[in-house]
């Protein structure tokens, strides 16, 4: 073997498996070992090494008989614990669902399974996908493999971002070749940026939401988290597809996303939205953004300054819409049918005891916010107004996309921060400031690692494209990736 198996990309693993350089079982065993070796990062809520080996064996059998299912066949991945997986505990990072073993498989995880991929375990996450640091998991926080080389956080444990922090940390630490994430307001892109990996949030409706524990139905979208842009293209191809079981799943064809690789950006018009700056944002992020624009220009794209005037309202809008939907979506966790139940003297007591014990602080906070904004007397002022603003935000994008093909912006206003660094909820919410606008508009977005902060931490650049135009998004992302020449270190503990 020319390269350590855990250091491979999905594309390399595919080619190696095809060339019979190694087997899926060998590839899986290397990753099972890596998962065990990196337990101190707490990237997984549940490890499923046995199931993974069974799947790998089946993959090898298929390959031996020439029935390879595709690029993902035999590829070890991590599954965010928000996806319901048949026969495997699915917690959503919550005490509420501790011990909950679904009798069904989410569409996306089933698609991946049907494509032959090998699930290594369930990745840790902020409870019910609410958070930007994976500190809100009932199963303990996940640690980012990166360490600051200097500065106040040097040597401290850093957060991997969130909510898909377990997935991000696992991919960055090379515990898996790719991982599923879900993105409601930035939960794929922000942890990808914090962890030095690629995170792709597809167009709303590209991937089925069926079987994914719901946070905010109008925003939730599954996507791949990988080490390369090409890998995201490959993995998305196995996740996406119209699903009649999800009314909001789009009846569109799934293109061969990998076909976008190598096309470059020549002739594309790239918009630079002037509103994507935040108070106190480090200069290095602005500089990187400028650098990104230069790379794209050098690669033949035309750079255009654009304006998305309602951007500043995106965050408050998001923090009304998402909690409103969440307050209703999470109402089903009532202790009656499954999950946690804490008995009480009456039905109401049982509800209160169960939900007080089952939900963590941030989840309770958002349920309260959501309940408030939907209440009689407040609904028009908050929820209705937020929906109106949401329409305006989508309108901003629609009009700039008449002129440009892709937008370039920072992914997050900061690099990864230390654990327990952001104690007040609003400063935590500010992590999403650059990711929520595309979420509200349902647009595809991708974070590509583009450089390092002055303290040696990864920084991502975000690209946003038109609805269902992931192909163009991937073209621009690959250009950034190539120009940045970003090298993901091999972290100790993850070496297989």
């Amino acid at each position, binding site marked *: 073997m020319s390269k350590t198996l855990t250091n491979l990309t999905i594309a390399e693993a595919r080619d190696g498996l095809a060339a019979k350089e190694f087997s899926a079982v060998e590839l899986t065993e290397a990753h099972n070992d890596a998962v065990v070796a990196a337990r101190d990062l707490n990237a997984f809520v549940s490890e499923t090494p046995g199931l993974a080996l069974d799947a790998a064996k089946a993959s090898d059998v298929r390959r031996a008989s020439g029935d390879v299912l595709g690029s993902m066949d035999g590829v070890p991945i991590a599954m965010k614990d928000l996806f319901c997986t048949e026969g495997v505990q699915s917690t959503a990072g919550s005490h509420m669902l501790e011990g909950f073993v679904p009798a069904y498989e989410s569409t996306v995880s089933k698609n991946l399974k049907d494509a032959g991929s090998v699930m290594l375990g369930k990745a840790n996450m902020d409870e019910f996908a609410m958070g930007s640091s994976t500190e809100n998991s009932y199963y303990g926080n996940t640690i980012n493999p990166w360490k600051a080389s200097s500065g106040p956080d040097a040597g401290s444990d850093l957060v991997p971002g969130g909510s898909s922090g377990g997935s991000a940390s696992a991919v960055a630490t090379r515990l898996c070749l790719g991982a599923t994430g879900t993105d409601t307001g930035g939960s794929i892109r922000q942890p990808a940026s914090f962890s030095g990996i690629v995170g792709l949030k597809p167009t709303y409706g590209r991937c089925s939401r069926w079987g994914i524990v719901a946070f905010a139905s109008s925003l939730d979208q599954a996507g791949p988290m990988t080490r390369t842009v090409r890998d995201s293209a490959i993995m998305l191809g196995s996740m996406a597809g119209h699903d009649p079981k999800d009314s909001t799943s789009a009846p569109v064809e799934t293109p061969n996303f990998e076909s976008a690789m190598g096309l470059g950006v020549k002739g594309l018009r790239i918009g630079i939205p002037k509103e994507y700056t935040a108070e106190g944002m480090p200069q290095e992020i602005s500089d990187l953004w400028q650098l990104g624009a230069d790379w794209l220009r050098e690669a033949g794209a035309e750079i255009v300054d654009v304006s998305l005037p309602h951007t500043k309202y995106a965050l408050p809008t998001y923090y009304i819409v998402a909690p*409103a939907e969440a307050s*209703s979506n999470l*109402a089903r966790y009532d202790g009656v049918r499954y999950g946690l139940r804490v008995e009480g003297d009456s039905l109401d007591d049982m509800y209160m005891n169960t939900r007080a014990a089952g939900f963590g602080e941030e989840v309770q906070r958002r349920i309260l916010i959501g309940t408030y904004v939907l209440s009689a007397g407040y609904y028009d002022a908050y929820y209705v107004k937020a929906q109106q603003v949401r329409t305006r935000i989508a309108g901003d994008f629609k009009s700039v996309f008449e002129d440009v093909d892709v937008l370039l912006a920072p992914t997050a206003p900061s690099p990864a921060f230390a654990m327990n660094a952001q104690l007040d909820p609003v400063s935590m919410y500010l992590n999403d400031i650059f990711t929520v606008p595309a979420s509200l508009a349902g647009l595809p977005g991708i974070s590509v690692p583009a450089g390092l902060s002055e303290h040696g931490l990864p920084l991502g650049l975000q690209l946003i494209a038109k609805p269902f135009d992931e192909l163009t998004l991937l073209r621009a992302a690959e250009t950034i990736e190539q120009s940045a020449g970003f090298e993901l270190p091999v972290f100790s503990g993850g070496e297989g």
Partner: protein
Amino acid sequence: MTYRIVGETGEWEVVIGLEVHAQVVSNSKLFSGASTEFGGAPNTHVSLVDAAMPGMLPVVNEKCIEQAVRTGLGLKAKINNYSVFARKNYFYADLPQSYQISQFDKPIVGAGVVILDMPDGTTREIGIERLHLEQDAGKSMHDQDPKRTFVDLNRSGVALMEIVSDPDMRSPEEAGIYVRKIRSIVRYLETCDGNMEQGSMRADVNVSVRKVGSTELNTRCEIKNVNSVRFVMQAIEAEAQRQVELVESGGEVEQQTRQFDPSKGETKAMRSKEFAHDYRYFPDPDLLPIEFSEEYVEAIKATLPELPDEKKQRYMSEYGLSAYDAGVLVVDRETGHYYEAVLGKNRDPKLAANWVISNLFGALKAESKSIEESPVSAEQLGQLLDLIADDTISGKIAKDVFEKMIASGDDPAVIVEKEGLKQITDTGAIEAAVDDVIANSPEQVAQFQGGNEKIAGWFVGQIMKATQGKANPGMVNKMLKEKLG
């Protein structure tokens, strides 16, 4: 017929609006593939969606949309080509999602009208405010265990149409007729089976009272889940009476949700306004708005059956039936079918109506049978009418034959033959009987000749008796007249 409550301070009028919940006829639930069949073992018709398992999503059953549109057309209502499902949030053990998917400000059907046929032959128009689709909840069973409540989710997610009337009714009777009319319409349309005893149709009854002459709408109480026409009427009476007594004794009607207790004949408070839920309605983000074209509505319209109002008009204009008879015959689609089958090609419509209404309905009622279960088929009743028409039997004998048909299910001709009931039309035989009676009744003959013409009836009776009722009554009359002068 004006309904008034006579109180101590004067006469009161009752104002009634109804929300009828009608279960949609469909094989599967509103948002899942689970069966809607009635009476399965608990929790056997429950999908992952109905149980609100994590990550499960609703997908609308198009059949239910079609049924709602169909019903809207039957209610002569505005069909909304764009409508939205909304979540109504509240916690209860038999509501697995802790929200009911319903429709709020954008229902699938808007304003319409229902015509009530009053017993005096007049009609009343009751406005329909809207019809919307919503999910039913499951069932909590508190009587299965001393400590615990059991939940059956078989009904959870079953599609209901909530048909909301304007506050246009003014008496318990009107409300009863309204519910029956709605039931009749949905049964004609086959959009709801209307079986109130199985819970496929139930009503929330809104009641308020006001002094006669007032046009204000006063605070109302809502009596929830009333499950028979009789109880709807009783609940209104009891509630209106309660409100009048309350107001007259210096109290104030409080907006409340109440329950009717049929055994006590009274309503009792469930929860008052301050404990009313804030349902926090908002558009369900799991579902797209329901949109359809005018062509879709037209296509459904083209399949509508003749509805009771139109059928009634036709019976009156084409068959010359009275408003009352026509109204009675069209209440059920099956009755209309039966009647028209009895009518066949050219039987007498009024005679047929009389036989169906007076004789058949009476017999069915006595045997507690529906018209579909009638032991006498429409064809057989038609044959009976033919036997009367061609003088094979008299109308009186026909009633006996009909009774025997009900009992045996035999064809009328078979019964007439077997029992020898064929009418005597032989002049000789009738003459002999007439002569015989006259000969044996000198006293009565004298009375008749003395001017007592009423006694003619007595003679007829005697002759019929002598012929076991088989003599043709027309011939007997004619002959008597000749013989007695």
